[in-house]
């Protein structure tokens, strides 16, 4: 018995719908993972920067800021897909006080496995920011 023409076309359409949907799902998982990992990196670097800021002597804004900037940049600069941006409000505290830093970075998806989608947007990137607070001790860094 020959296959009716209607059924033959139906199979093709089903496959044409199913495969792209499943591939989109897989790429979505990968994209979510890449962005989540980038956020973990930025959050960790910002936390370290806040801790470094309060490891400098108290009442020395310049040194505190330098400790934080070097820590933030040093932690992120080796990343192949993440470029560190500014680190705001990070540095300067009085003994027993706190420092709250906000770190910015950009994820360049063209440098990740998501590059296979690059033809859609050659400048595809995601901006990420994270905030962390460092708590200083009364008994350190006179």
């Amino acid at each position, binding site marked *: 018995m020959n*296959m009716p023409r209607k059924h033959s076309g139906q199979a093709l359409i089903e496959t044409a719908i199913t495969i792209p949907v499943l591939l989109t799902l897989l790429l979505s998982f990968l994209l979510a993972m890449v962005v989540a990992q980038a956020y973990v990196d930025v959050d960790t670097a910002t936390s370290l920067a806040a801790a470094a800021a309060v490891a400098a002597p108290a009442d020395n804004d310049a040194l505190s800021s330098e400790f934080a900037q070097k820590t933030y940049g040093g932690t992120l600069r080796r990343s192949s897909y993440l470029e560190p941006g500014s680190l705001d409000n990070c540095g300067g505290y009085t003994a027993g006080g706190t420092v709250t830093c906000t770190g910015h970075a950009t994820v360049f998806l063209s440098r990740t496995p998501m590059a296979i989608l690059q033809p859609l947007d050659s400048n595809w990137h995601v901006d990420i920011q994270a905030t962390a607070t460092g708590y200083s001790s009364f008994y350190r860094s006179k």
Partner: protein
Amino acid sequence: MPVGPHQGGQSIVEFAFTIGAFLLVLFGALSTALYAVQRSAAVTAAAAGVRAAASAQSDSASDVDLAAAGPLVSSRLEPVLFGSTLERKPAGTPCDPLDSIPTGHLEVCATLDPADASMVLVVVRGRPFNLLPLVPLPWTIDAPAEFHKVTFQR
């Protein structure tokens, strides 16, 4: 209407394609999730390790304690190694290049930053086992963390 031999075979082929693609997505997502767990642990372990390594030694307030990083990183990372091994490099010894590290092996190393001796660098680097070889994704980990030296003086 009875199904002819052509249509029966066609259904099997369609089912094979669909279930194959579905399993690929399912295992790909699982593999991605497991890798994300391992990499997140490596990043946070390196951060914890660098804070310990950047602190002063108990018997020398002006020297950093690079050897403190290894045990701390190991304790954080071992629960999520899933069969991979973790090697602690001696204090001050840099990690091997990623290309020369075999699959199933990770390294942790604590050094001073070669570009800036006031900074301590801890790196967790390697190639964990791909737990779902059905989806051969090239998972690698290269998680650095830097921290400014924390030393003391009288």
